């Protein structure tokens, strides 16, 4: 981030915090919390250690949901991209399931994983898997489907096919678009985890918001939201770094 961008960023934040402070001047605990109250709340829940438990719980669920979605979504999406008949049979199904909000699956998820240990965690992970799976499959499909014909012909011209062709041409060529899909999926999963946790589990940042609300501690609610925003940003920056290292030296002509 260039210093100028950093400066402008902080100015943006400063304006937001200032207006937030003015808007909530003189509010008590029960009303809309101001920045100062939020910071105090943040310090308190951090001090009590409960914040770290909730952060770990949320990140744990997103990590598993996301990795499973990537592990299954990428190969499936690439297969859809490469074999048109496969795409024609399954893509309509995928695209019709996609708009269903993952939260709608919660009742089924709870029943599906009922009785097993860590069932509420598994239910949340299942929801996150769904929320990340669809963008990943879609990105992987279009990455392979739009593979440049001249790369395919170059490889076949040199007699490179089968697994070598997949590993040395298809995968690297579709990597940029797949990584974009992954980054998008992680963002969506992070939004969904908080919502999922509001409904079914007893740990995590979503639960923290809901529980603070029940405890009439609006300052804890805004403190949790600050943490949610910060971690969401960190996850996105981490993915951006992964993308940068993976596509290093490819320059703009990434495809």
């Amino acid at each position, binding site marked *: 981030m260039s210093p100028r961008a950093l400066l402008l960023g902080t100015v943006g934040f400063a304006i937001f915090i200032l207006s937030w402070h003015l808007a909530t001047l003189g509010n008590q605990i029960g009303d809309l919390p101001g920045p100062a109250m939020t910071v105090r709340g943040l310090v308190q829940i951090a001090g009590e250690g409960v914040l770290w438990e909730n952060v770990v719980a949320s990140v744990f669920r997103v990590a598993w949901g996301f990795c499973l979605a990537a592990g299954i979504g990428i190969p499936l999406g690439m297969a859809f991209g490469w074999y048109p008949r496969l795409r024609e049979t399954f893509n309509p199904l995928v695209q019709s399931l996609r708009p269903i909000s993952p939260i709608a699956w919660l009742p089924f998820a709870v029943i599906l994983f009922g009785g097993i240990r860590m069932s509420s965690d598994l239910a949340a992970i299942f929801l996150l898997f769904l929320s990340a799976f669809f963008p990943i499959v879609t990105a992987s499909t279009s990455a392979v489907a739009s593979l440049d014909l001249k790369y395919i012909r170059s490889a076949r011209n040199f*007699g490179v096919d089968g697994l070598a062709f997949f590993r040395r041409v298809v995968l690297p060529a579709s990597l940029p678009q797949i990584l974009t899909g992954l980054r998008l999926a992680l963002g969506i999963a992070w939004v969904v985890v908080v919502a999922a946790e509001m409904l079914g589990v007893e740990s995590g940042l979503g639960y923290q918001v809901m529980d603070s609300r029940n405890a009439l501690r609006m300052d804890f609610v805004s403190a949790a939201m600050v943490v949610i925003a910060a971690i969401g940003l960190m996850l996105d920056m981490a993915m951006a770094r992964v993308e940068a290292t993976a596509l290093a030296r490819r320059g703009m002509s990434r495809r």
Partner: protein
Amino acid sequence: MSATEPEARQGAEPRTMQAGAKIVVRDVRKTFPTKKEDVNVLDGVDLTVREGEFLAIVGPSGCGKSTLLNCMAGFERITSGSIRIDSEEIERPSPKRVFVFQETGIFPWYSVWDNIGFGLGKMPFDKKHEIVMRYIALVGLEGFEKAFPAELSGGMKQRVEFARALAVEPDVLFLDEPFGALDAFTRLEMRREIVRIWKETGKTCILVTHDVEEAVELADRVAVMTRRPARIHSVLDNPLERPRDSDQPVFRELKDQIFEILGVERRV
């Protein structure tokens, strides 16, 4: 075509096998099925390419010269007729006949070294290194082994593509408007490069281009194609000695002749 097509084609190739013929294309037809109706692209193409020759194929854009080249390379199947290389029917692409694309087909995710070594497949590192370095030297890219395509100029990327193609020691090079994406100066430089490489390696080169001057400047013979559905109108011998100078009167005469066949008004 302004002139009605003469029945006896001037300087047309006799049908019999020519001594030293590398590629023989006989009565090739190619139709592309579309929703409305079939599009007939090649309509009875006959062409013979001699061993070690530099042949140019010239024709208006969209006439099907690239399709012909793709068929000769084995990327596309012909509807009817036959294409034989060393009297063997073409089934699919092979490292013996390497294709060079217009905007280069090298891989942006591989370094120059990896790109050139791409076609060499499994072999001990030092043997592969020796071959790769030899062709890096041939195309004048010493010192750029570790560079990636995004960091190279258009001309240098073209050189990597040539090196990659030559590294597998093919018999034939198919060049599909290879300099189309380059600026004028680089284009001139690369034309000299391809002639030098062609002389040094003795490969059979087939160049497809819509630039008549480029064809006359590079080729031993120039095959002129008609509009779609395309056929070989005629194959003209290029008597010019190398290195050629576009100001030579014979150069201009040959160019005019080709333009006239193509029915293109040359004067701007």
